[in-house]
């Protein structure tokens, strides 16, 4: 498995165990099995009367075999190797039947617990082979438990004098400490078992459909195994022979076969769903751009699947709608699979860890072309979105600038000119003795008044104060009041966001200017209504119609641009001889 980024993975990079590795594992299993069998068989105290230990050995070797199959089926997944190790640990633990051989029995008894630790690890890492967070801490605790308590106890445990064997690892005999450690170890095993069960139950409860699918077989077999494991440890703590017999009896041994099979079925569950990939391939040419995410989610049985595309500059990711998306950073049970093509990452699948990577790879291979299209489409949408928002920003900045200029004219130039008027007046009063000068000052004052009137008209054209003070309705009404032909105004008197008001006002203003310029109309009307979450504007006239509603009409184009800048639409209806109606719909949010 090639790990591309922190949690990244590139589809199809995991290598299967080679032939040599496989042969070595098989040979080791046979060798260890044979040694253990020989040691047990030759032990003077081996309890081989009913031969059920033989079944146990078979179950252990079977587990190793199943582990190998898993490793081959899911090369990138640690569950396979873990199951193999569990099989070996159990095989060695089989030595605990060699009651007459001190070394063999001691090793076997110790490894009984190691088998349990591996089992806990397999449970917690299932089905994706990795542990993180809480389950990772649990696994570490389990290994620590084994090394500290199970091995440590041997160093101080003098076996009971009644036993035929002595403890070969004993370095500091202390019966009390040994008993205490033994009790702690057994209680610890029980606690560990409960925590593992709790974690798996929790994972089931919160798991995605695909994770549940993988967990299902394990889920049904686990109670049987748990009962026997639990019984075994209770037997250890209480020293009950009956419970001990039950926990190692034929039923328990049967469960030894069931467990690995359940894990195998769970792991291959998704593999059995290859048919869905065939469906995906069949459906691809019917899948519309934008629906690929849903099609992949269906094919991989993971409704939580998300599709992401790297942005052209490679610094961020967007989803198929062009919206920025964050990749998971680990922690959650989410995986990131990169799909590469022509030297770059085409797409990224964010999916549940439980999804079979090979299945993901098949799906990715099947949909690579569609993904490439989807990526281009997402890129385009992202660019479009960027252009749209930058246009909105430009329009807003322009409007703000107009407001500022209007204010500057009003507070600056206009005030100064009026003040100049006062001065001229006062000069005039003192010019009584000089009628010629008085006349000049009077003329200057008239010029000033004309200038002020023009300045006022200019400021009003730049940004009407009525718009800022009263909103759209009064501003349109004042516009209509000054219009040379009658305009019926019917605009709801309500305030909107400044960009909407400004846009609406300039659309009305521009449309009315067009009426005057081209329509030869005798009257016009302006209406503004709320419909849903939008402002519907309509500017109509009774003129000659025939206005160019297409891109050709630059005036109309400008109107449409303004509407679109706030996410709105604009249409024009202008049949020859039938008047012109401009309709705009501006969303309020």
């Amino acid at each position, binding site marked *: 498995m090639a790990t591309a980024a922190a949690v990244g993975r590139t589809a199809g990079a995991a290598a299967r165990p080679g032939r040599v590795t496989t042969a070595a594992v098989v040979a080791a299993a046979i060798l260890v099995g044979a040694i253990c069998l020989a040691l047990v068989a030759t032990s003077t105290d081996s309890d081989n009367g009913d031969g059920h230990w033989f079944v146990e050995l078979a179950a252990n070797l079977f587990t190793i075999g199943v582990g190998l199959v898993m490793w081959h089926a899911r090369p990138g997944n640690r569950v396979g190797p873990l199951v193999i190790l569990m099989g070996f640990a159990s095989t060695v633990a089989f030595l605990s039947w060699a009651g007459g051989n001190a070394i063999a029995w001691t090793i076997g008894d110790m490894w009984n617990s190691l088998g349990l630790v591996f089992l806990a690890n397999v449970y917690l890492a299932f089905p994706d082979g990795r542990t993180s967070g809480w389950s990772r801490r649990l696994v570490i605790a389990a290994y620590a438990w084994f090394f500290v308590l199970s091995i440590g106890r041997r160093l101080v445990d003098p076996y009971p004098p009644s036993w035929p064997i002595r403890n070969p690892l004993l370095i500091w005999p202390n019966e009390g400490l040994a008993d205490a450690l033994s009790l702690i170890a057994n209680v610890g095993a029980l606690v560990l078992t409960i925590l593992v069960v709790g974690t798996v139950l929790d994972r089931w409860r919160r798991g995605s459909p695909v994770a549940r699918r993988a967990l299902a077989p394990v889920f049904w077999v686990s109670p049987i195994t748990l009962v026997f494991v639990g019984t075994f440890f209770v037997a250890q703590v209480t020293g009950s022979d009956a419970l001990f017999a039950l926990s190692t009896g034929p039923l328990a041994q049967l469960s030894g076969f069931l467990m690995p099979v359940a894990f195998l079925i769970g792991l291959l569950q998704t593999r059995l769903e290859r048919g869905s990939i065939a469906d995906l391939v069949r459906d691809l040419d019917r899948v519309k751009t934008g629906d690929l995410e849903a099609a992949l989610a269906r094919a991989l049985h993971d409704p939580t699947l998300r599709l992401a595309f790297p942005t052209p500059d490679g610094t961020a990711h967007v989803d198929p709608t062009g919206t920025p998306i964050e990749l998971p950073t680990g922690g959650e049970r989410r995986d990131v699979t990169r799909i590469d093509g022509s030297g770059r990452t085409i797409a990224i699948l964010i999916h549940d860890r439980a999804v079979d990577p090979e299945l993901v790879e098949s799906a990715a291979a099947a949909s690579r072309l569609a993904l490439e299209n989807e990526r281009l489409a997402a890129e385009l949408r992202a660019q479009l979105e960027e252009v749209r928002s930058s246009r909105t920003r430009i329009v807003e900045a322009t409007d703000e600038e107009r407001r500022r200029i209007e*204010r500057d004219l*009003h*507070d600056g130039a*206009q*005030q*100064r000119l*009026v*003040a100049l*008027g*006062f*001065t*001229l*007046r*006062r000069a005039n*009063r003192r010019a009584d003795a000089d009628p010629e000068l008085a006349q000049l000052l009077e003329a200057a*004052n008239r010029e*000033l*008044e004309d200038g*002020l*009137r023009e300045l*006022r008209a200019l*400021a*009003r054209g730049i940004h009407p*104060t*009525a718009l*800022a*003070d*009263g909103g759209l309705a*009064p501003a349109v*009404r*004042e516009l209509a*009041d*000054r*219009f*040379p*032909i*009658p*305009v019926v105004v019917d605009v709801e008197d309500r305030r909107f966001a400044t960009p909407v008001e400004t846009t609406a006002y300039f659309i009305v203003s521009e449309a009315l200017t067009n009426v005057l310029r081209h329509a030869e109309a005798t*009257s016009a009307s302006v209406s503004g209504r709320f419909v849903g979450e939008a402002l519907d504007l309509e500017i109509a006239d009774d003129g000659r119609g025939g206005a160019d509603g297409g891109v050709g009409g630059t005036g109309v184009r400008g109107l449409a641009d303004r509407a679109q800048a706030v996410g709105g639409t604009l249409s024009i209806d202008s049949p020859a001889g039938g008047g012109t109606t401009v309709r705009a719909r501006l969303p309020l949010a």
Partner: protein
Amino acid sequence: MTGPVTRPLRVVLADDSVLFRSGLAHLLADEGFDVVGEAGDAAGALELVDRERPDVAVLDIRMPPDHRTEGLEAAIAIRDRHPSTAVLLLSAHVETRHAIRLLRADAAGVGYLLKDRVMREADLLDAIRRVASGGSVIDPEVVGELLGRARPHGPLDELTPRERDVLALMAEGRSNQAIAERLVLESKTVEGHIRAIFSKLGLEPEPADHRRVLAVITYLRA
């Protein structure tokens, strides 16, 4: 306030431009008004009026903090609190709806004047005196804009040119006497014109000048 003014009118000014305020204060002082206080914003103006109880408050419509209609709100508040203080509102732009709001709140003793008008000294002084004596003043440019509005054919088209002149002067808040003087007509003739206008427009005759202003402006605005 009736009868001839025997003492200087006490005036309060409010405008956020110091330049404008001091220019106006000088002009009024030159003309024998008693400028008792100046303020830079609406709150200051209200405080000043509360304290000084002037005859007239001259307010700019746009003042800090928001530069919207603070002056208009202050004008309405002043008329409400101090009926003896008349208000003259100055606006940099023709905004009919502000004029109408002011008239609706209290048509007597209020005026709405374009800011440029202050340079026509005679018009300004006349407006201050008229509001101080309980009249109402509407800037001729506001009236002109209302009369000049494009509208479908209607009763206004039935008026004679002379009647239109009378209507405009009524809308500005002029009394019959003033209209007669302005148009060089007999008082009786003016009264005749007014009756004809009200009849043609379908309005109820309004004897009081300030009520007449509101009726006419509302009609023109409709």
